[in-house]
């Protein structure tokens, strides 16, 4: 039995329930990255990108192998990762707490928000001297810089996230449970979660930006210091190795947050792109 559409009607395309894309999405993402690297190699090989300007992927790979086999890279990564991890472990909760204070209470907002808005534009480079005075020259000032870099994006995104929570849901939840703690845990935080995760995503990026500044002011190891050294020696290939590492860290943090999103936000019914 086949319907021959009447004139003026259009037959709809129904694709059925099971519709796994032929090429899985992660494969497409990987393909894009591989293609970019291939393009870079091609342009380098053709001589359009002078080696002095930007080393070719192969050169970079070579430099990376050197750095890895000499143990320099491993050591630097370990140092930096520890600092970033500590900064994140302190900064994310701090940002969340501050955002809760000013998101949940108008009085909290009056008290916390202006100072936060003022502090967040203070450049890392400008406050390092103060940090050295307060925290010395060890790991502490570097961790403190990461802390700052992390705290603000988490704060701002969480604050806006909290204030974006649907008032009707808050009202409904309030009738069933007047405890403010439980309300926060059950309604405000889940409702703000999409934004909180953006904050975390940004924080995972700014943590590295901040650390580079920290590791430049007082150079005692870490990937930022490795890069600074390469800069001083005009070793373009090593600089690019460091940049590639940052890029990979970016990808990694994206993977982490995507994982969190899949885990925590499966309840959403949102626009998923066409």
């Amino acid at each position, binding site marked *: 039995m086949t319907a021959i559409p009447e004139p003026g009607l259009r037959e709809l395309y129904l694709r059925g329930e099971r519709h796994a894309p032929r090429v899985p999405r992660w494969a497409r993402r990987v393909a894009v990255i591989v293609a970019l690297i291939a393009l870079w190699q091609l342009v380098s090989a053709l001589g359009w990108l002078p080696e002095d300007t930007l080393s070719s992927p192969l050169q970079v790979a070579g430099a990376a192998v050197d750095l890895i086999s000499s143990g320099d890279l491993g050591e630097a990564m370990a140092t930096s990762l520890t600092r970033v991890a500590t900064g994140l472990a302190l900064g994310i909760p701090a940002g969340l707490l501050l955002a809760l204070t000013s998101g949940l209470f108008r009085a909290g907002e009056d008290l916390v928000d202006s100072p936060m808005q003022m502090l967040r534009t203070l450049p890392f480079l400008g406050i390092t001297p103060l940090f050295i005075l307060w925290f010395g020259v060890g790991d502490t000032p570097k961790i403190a810089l990461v802390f700052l870099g992390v705290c603000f994006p988490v704060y701002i995104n969480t604050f806006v996230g909290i204030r974006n929570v649907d008032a*009707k849901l808050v009202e409904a*939840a309030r009738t069933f449970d007047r405890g403010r703690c439980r309300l926060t845990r059950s309604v405000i935080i889940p409702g703000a979660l999409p934004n909180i995760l953006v904050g975390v995503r940004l924080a995972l990026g700014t943590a590295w930006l901040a650390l580079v500044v920290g590791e430049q002011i007082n150079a005692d190891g870490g990937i930022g210091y490795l890069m600074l050294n390469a800069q001083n020696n005009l070793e373009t290939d090593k600089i690019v190795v460091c940049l590639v590492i940052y890029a990979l860290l970016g990808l990694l943090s994206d993977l982490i947050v995507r994982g969190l999103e899949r885990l925590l936000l499966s*309840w959403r*019914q949102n626009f998923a792109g066409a």
Partner: protein
Amino acid sequence: MTEVRELTEPRTATRTAVIAEDVHRAFGDREILRGVDLRVRQGEFLALLGASGSGKSTLLRIVGALDHGARGKVAVPARTSVAFQEPRLLPWRRVWRNVAFGLPAAGRRQRALAALDEVGLTHVADAWPKTLSGGEAQRVALARALVRDPQLLLLDEPLASLDALTRLKMQQLIAQLWARHRLTAILVTHDVDEALVLADRAVVLRDGRLAEELPVTLDRPRDPGSEQFAVLRARLLGWLGVTVPRS
């Protein structure tokens, strides 16, 4: 049916459960409530009717302690439970957890499942709210309001999106719970029959005041086909602006 027969026994409650005196509420220039006076006895079932936009939900929100922007005097019991006009389910909690929201931890899943069973939705207990149909969401919201043990139950058109059969079942459910727990209930509805089947008294909100009042003294369970019922129905519909020529 035993529970429904309970209803026919004389109700002993005489204390007042809801007091609203001279309640005014304006949004900007528009004054929606212009001096509402209302007393609901403990254990009474009140139906609140009125045209669309007349302020029923507004009044309910005030009585539910959700709107402090009104003027006047309102006193209500401590434990209130509300079924809102929209389902207002928390999208990040599975259905049963929405029902269990705010219940003490011990046995909450059992209680939630029992409530879902009563509204005929055990099969969606573990679904996300976004996957529910309109009527299913409304029943989950109803279950959430009924599962707790309130002193005052506020229902804002809780059955509007339900088909005829489900609606009748839900009406029975509400009547049973009300009778069993001797709740005080205020039901906003547009369905005159529903109001007459369930309520002890029906009031009509018009021009910002409770303009009409109709005690419903029919015996329970009530028969919408009865002559008395038809009289009350015509009266109520008349107040709402609809004239029914009895054929």
